[in-house]
């Protein structure tokens, strides 16, 4: 039976204003920097990133990355000259795409600010006036580099250093777009800020760099969504996200990733929580060919807290290698990790996590729970947790289960008139309920709809 169609697989016949030739070299990096009219500092940082990218090997643990052809990727594609601040200023075809994706409509209903990125650049950015007046900065990262250079330099690369891994080095070399958010002391942004990332060009790479700084006592929720057209050639998404939560701040970062099945999604996301800060990562992975992503939190201040919810749906020919990492570096820190994955139609879902307590992190508490559902005999599930404890009075618990959908649950639903596939979809939606309840209502409905679509026609006779 056919796998259901990916509804975002359309593409636009938009001619880019500028595109670097395929492949990555030092000249390409210089060209990207020149196109953006950047300072010498950023150009030199990019070049250091490039040098490290060339030295570091591609990891062989995790998913199979051996088929990525780095020379076939285009590392910078620009569709417009500069970001618009109203939808009427956005070129028609691009605006139509985002309307099909529901972005402007959702901005009106749910969000305090929205950024929309199309290939390598942000094409639209807007923040509500009242937040602007309170000193909240929500702009694209390229603009932030120019308008707030001191603030930018203070934090850029401090949580994810250039040489952290091969893909953070690649991102440092050719980053473009992404969100920059600064929330001043004591300001609580009541409605979420949203960014939407869309790849349109064939064989494109998208390397957004997001930097969120929540000053003392502030509160912000950031949501991002991502989709791409379905091509027969591969695309690469290697983003870096750095979050800094100062004393007593609260940041929730939600991602619903629904890339098409030709996208390699290799992302480094890390947050640093200072004293009393609270970081939440809500990470939903529904799409892509291969995802390798492990949202992390460094609990660096006394009493810091982290909650990580990682959800993955691995269908036909997909490998979701996801998880979470928490490093406790200070006393009285607490973290919770909940990971849920569903594998069906031959898909593979792997949980990879680290729970570490370093010396001095007295009375640290960590709880990790991983649940995996296997829907058929063709699919696969793996769990690779790592627990490292260097303090006697820390308390760490980890548990994981892997099983198929309960026959009792299926029988109960079948006896109420649901078909086997409808019943399986309902069970999976219920399994993902912890993710759905963190989202705005319409998003939660959309998520359940997406899960249902993905689950259709997967039951193997």
């Amino acid at each position, binding site marked *: 039976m056919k796998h259901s169609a990916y509804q975002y697989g359309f593409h636009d016949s938009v001619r880019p204003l500028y595109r670097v030739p395929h492949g990555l070299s030092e000249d390409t990096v210089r060209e990207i920097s020149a196109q953006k009219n950047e300072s010498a500092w950023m150009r030199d940082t990019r070049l250091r990133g490039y040098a490290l990218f060339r030295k570091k090997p591609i990891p062989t643990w995790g998913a199979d990355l051996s088929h990525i052809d780095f020379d076939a990727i285009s590392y910078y594609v620009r569709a417009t000259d500069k970001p618009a601040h109203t939808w009427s200023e956005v070129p028609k075809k691009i605006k139509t795409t985002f309307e099909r994706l529901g972005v402007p409509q959702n901005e009106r209903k749910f969000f305090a600010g929205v950024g929309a990125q199309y290939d390598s650049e942000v094409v639209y950015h807007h923040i509500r006036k009242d937040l602007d007046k309170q000193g909240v900065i929500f702009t694209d990262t390229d603009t932030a580099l120019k308008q707030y250079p001191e603030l930018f330099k203070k934090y850029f690369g401090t949580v994810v250093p250039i040489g952290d891994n091969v893909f953070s080095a690649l991102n440092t070399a050719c980053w473009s777009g992404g969100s920059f958010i600064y929330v001043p002391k004591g300001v609580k942004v009541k409605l979420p800020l949203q960014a939407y990332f869309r790849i349109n060009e064939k064989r494109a790479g998208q390397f957004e760099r997001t930097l969120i700084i929540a000053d003392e006592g502030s509160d912000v929720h950031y949501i991002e969504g991502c989709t791409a057209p379905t091509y027969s050639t591969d695309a690469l998404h290697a983003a870096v996200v750095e979050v800094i939560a100062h004393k007593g701040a609260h940041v929730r970062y939600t991602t619903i990733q629904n890339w098409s099945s030709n996208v390699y999604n290799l992302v480094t996301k890390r947050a640093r929580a200072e004293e009393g800060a609270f970081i939440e990562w809500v990470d939903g992975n529904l799409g892509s060919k291969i995802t390798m992503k492990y949202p992390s939190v460094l609990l660096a201040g006394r009493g810091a807290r982290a909650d990580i919810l990682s959800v993955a749906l691995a269908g036909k020919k997909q490998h979701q290698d996801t998880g979470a990492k928490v490093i406790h570096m200070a006393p009285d820190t607490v973290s919770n990790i909940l990971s849920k994955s569903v594998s069906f139609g031959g898909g593979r879902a792997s949980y990879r996590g680290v729970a570490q307590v370093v010396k001095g992190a007295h009375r640290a508490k960590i709880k990790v729970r991983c649940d995996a559902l296997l829907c058929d005999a063709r699919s696969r599930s*793996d769990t690779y947790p*790592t627990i490292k404890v260097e303090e006697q009075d820390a308390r760490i618990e980890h548990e994981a289960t892997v*099983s198929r959908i309960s026959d009792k649950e299926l029988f109960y639903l079948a006896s109420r008139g649901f078909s086997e596939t409808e019943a399986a979809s309902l069970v999976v939606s219920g399994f993902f309920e912890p993710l759905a309840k963190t989202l705005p209502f319409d998003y939660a409905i959309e998520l359940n709809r997406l899960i249902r679509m993905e689950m259709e026609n997967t039951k193997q006779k």
Partner: protein
Amino acid sequence: MKTVKSLAQKENVRIIHITSRDMGVAFKKHIATQAHEHVRLILVCEKTAPKTADIAITLKGKNSSASVIWVWRGTKTMRSDIAISLVHAAPHTASSVHFKAACEDAARISFTALAHVQKNAHDATTCINAHALMLSPSAIAFLKPDLEVETDDAQARHGASAGKPSDTELFYLRSRGFSEKESIPLLREAFFHDIVSLA
């Protein structure tokens, strides 16, 4: 009353007891089970322990099972790097690992276990439990229980924990007149009690 030996002979059960004296510095044990064979490996490390231990069990035979029960008590500067691999290569197989380590002084334990259920290992069940009791500020524990499951009708689970003796339990003993020095050995024995009774 059946003796252990007669039980083993009748039901094809192989029970292997190994102490740290038998293990030496680098311990290796590879076992492949036949159909309907049940293997139980009971290992005890006290006062000394191997620097490295590599146990690989392949459940090749249908309806076979294996269980590993390991008590590791680390004192002074004892260090062990333990790796256990359980491969389910046939249907209706079962495996379990119960590992408990009590780390005193500057002891360090590194424990990794992988349970791999292959595609044809229908109706397999596997369970890995790894727990570390930290009895000193200088002790270090590294636990890594991995699962790889390639069939949807297997049941796999694992659990791991690390922590010091419960304050509640310590208080209970102190309130009954035991000093802290006397309480710790009691709590350590209680920690090991459930897997010792499995053995």
